């Protein structure tokens, strides 16, 4: 494969991409009226501020949220800790292997 052909192909690639992008941009993305999918999507038209919260549930949710988040972060840090431990083991193994390699190479070299 020679360079000019490669460059040419890269150019063609870029041109195709941008042409496709243009073609996409030209289709009126908003031509589907907001109600288009309304019958298929439940709660589609619902705007966020029409919901109702019951005040007596608030504190409970609050606490649940706290617990959920703590659990998530515990998991994340647990994952990190596990990787760290494994990584330490790998490092130790690497040291060992490298020492053995150095021994072998020293022997072969003499």
């Amino acid at each position, binding site marked *: 494969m020679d360079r000019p052909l490669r460059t040419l192909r890269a150019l063609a690639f870029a041109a195709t991409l941008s042409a496709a992008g243009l073609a*996409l941009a030209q289709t009126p993305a908003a031509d589907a009226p907001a109600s288009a999918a309304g019958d298929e999507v439940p709660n589609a038209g619902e705007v966020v501020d029409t919901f109702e919260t019951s005040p007596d549930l608030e504190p409970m949710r609050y606490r649940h949220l706290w617990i959920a988040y703590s659990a998530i972060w515990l998991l994340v840090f647990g994952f990190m800790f596990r990787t760290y431990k494994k990584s330490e083991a790998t490092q130790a193994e690497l040291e060992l292997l490298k020492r053995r390699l150095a021994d072998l190479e020293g022997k072969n070299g003499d």
Partner: protein
Amino acid sequence: MTEARPPAPRPPRTRAPGYTRTVLIVLAKDARTELRSKQTLATMLLFGLVLTFVYAFGFVSDPATNKKVMPGAMWGALLFAGTLGVGRTFAREAEDGAFGALVLSPAERSAILLAKIAVNVALSALVMVVVVPLLAVMLRVDLTDCAGLIALQLLLGAIGFAAVGTPLAVMAVSARFAEVLLPIVVFPMVTPVLIAGVKGASVALGTAIETDPWPWLQFTAAYGLVFGAGGLFLFERMVTE
């Protein structure tokens, strides 16, 4: 004393065939082997038929509902049967140990990929020619008014699907559980094709609110173009040795 040896005979100079010729050669080779063995086509067709029964038993209902179910059934069949075909793209070469030879040959690799994409599109198209009318009969949906439009949509969709699926299938060969991994990997990526196809088909069947099928067609075409170009461009880098 060594006498002057006669110059070794030069190996015959092999020139790589041109790009178009490479595509045609690989295409012809695959067409010939497929016509002889009919392995992939037969399995795909049978799978498509089985799928129509699954859909028929699962979804057949009153005519209005059937009409709404039809696009999803068609496109589901295309994706599932297509995955089967795409997964077998290089199967014969792999079985005969000819994959390395094909890649090592001086032919340009992207030409090989292009030919393979064409093969997969042709296989999907053949399967859909049988499966779609059958689905129409089973779900009792009248497709005569929009047959051309739906055929065009399916063809563009098959191109988009093959453009994504073929290179990934080639790459998947070296992984363990390749045949399981392939659908997991391909389906999320071809969701745009599925969405566009189902939407476009429901426009064609008159069950959607929009009436213009062209934006979705254009979208599917753009998808196929971008992934086709990207795959062909990257293929040289994907496969080595």
